[in-house]
């Protein structure tokens, strides 16, 4: 894991569409069960549960993805209009960042 080289995602504002992001693998351990993703945040002793679309985004981020790629994932996987997908990806990434689970790759 390139943990040493990854920086926490910056704290302010919007996410740059082409900047690659990934999950903090040291902090969050997770497993996919059926259509859901369950996560344990070891630092804060918190369980996280992700719904279908959330899980899909999570899995992409595990391998590293840009916000644009995440939007494309939702558009192709769920046939959501791009505007809606963009907003939802933005909100989701904010939620992850607030929990300190995001790194810039």
């Amino acid at each position, binding site marked *: 894991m390139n943990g040493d080289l990854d920086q926490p995602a910056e704290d302010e504002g919007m996410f740059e569409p082409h900047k690659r992001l990934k999950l903090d693998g040291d902090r969050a351990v997770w497993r*996919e069960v*059926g259509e859901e993703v369950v996560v344990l945040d070891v630092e804060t002793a918190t369980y996280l549960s992700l719904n279908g679309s959330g899980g899909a985004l999570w899995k992409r981020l595990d391998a590293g993805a840009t916000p644009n790629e995440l939007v494309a994932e939702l558009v192709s996987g769920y046939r959501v209009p791009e505007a809606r997908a963009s907003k939802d990806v933005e909100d989701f990434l904010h939620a992850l960042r607030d929990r300190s689970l995001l790194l810039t790759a």
Partner: protein
Amino acid sequence: MPVLVIQERRRLYRESMTACLKRQLDAFDVIEGVADAAGLLRLAESRHLDHAVIEVDGVSWDVAVLAGRLRHHNPSLQLIGLAASVRSSAIEGVRILSRVAGPDQVAELVCPGHAREVPFVLTSSSSSASSPLSGQQLRVLALLSLGMTVAEVAARLRLSEGAVTKAKVAIFSKLGVQSQAHAVASALAAGWLGPAAASSVVLTGERL
């Protein structure tokens, strides 16, 4: 406050439903449940009931008759029936939900807007998703593998014997077999029944 009552013969499930709905529905007076039709009618005579959640399958009383008598006390009573199988025939004046509906759907019908509290609720397993057998067919097969007769399976699942026989025929046809034993063997081997499926789920991420 509007009054909601629960009819369910099994005490554990009755108390669970009551506890759960009480917590979810602040705007209702959720009465401690009643066990059977007689109890429900007695209650309807002494109190004004607005909503009732009742069993519709495998009960010894006529649900349509019960619904009629309850309406006599309160014509605008809302009746929600929990059915063991989705193919339960419609009953006049009763909104049927399948038992897998659970608290969310019942609460949604009675009073929209609530939160699920158990952290991880898994609504599927990959084995069941890939199986050619329906949920009901799997359950029938599981009980047959215990050595139960068609009559016993029907009683346990609250179905008619005809429905169980029909499920058996469908199972044999879908699995391409001609005997119960062969059906069980196929389903176990394919991982549609039992824990073989667990090891076939793709593991990703770190193991806790």
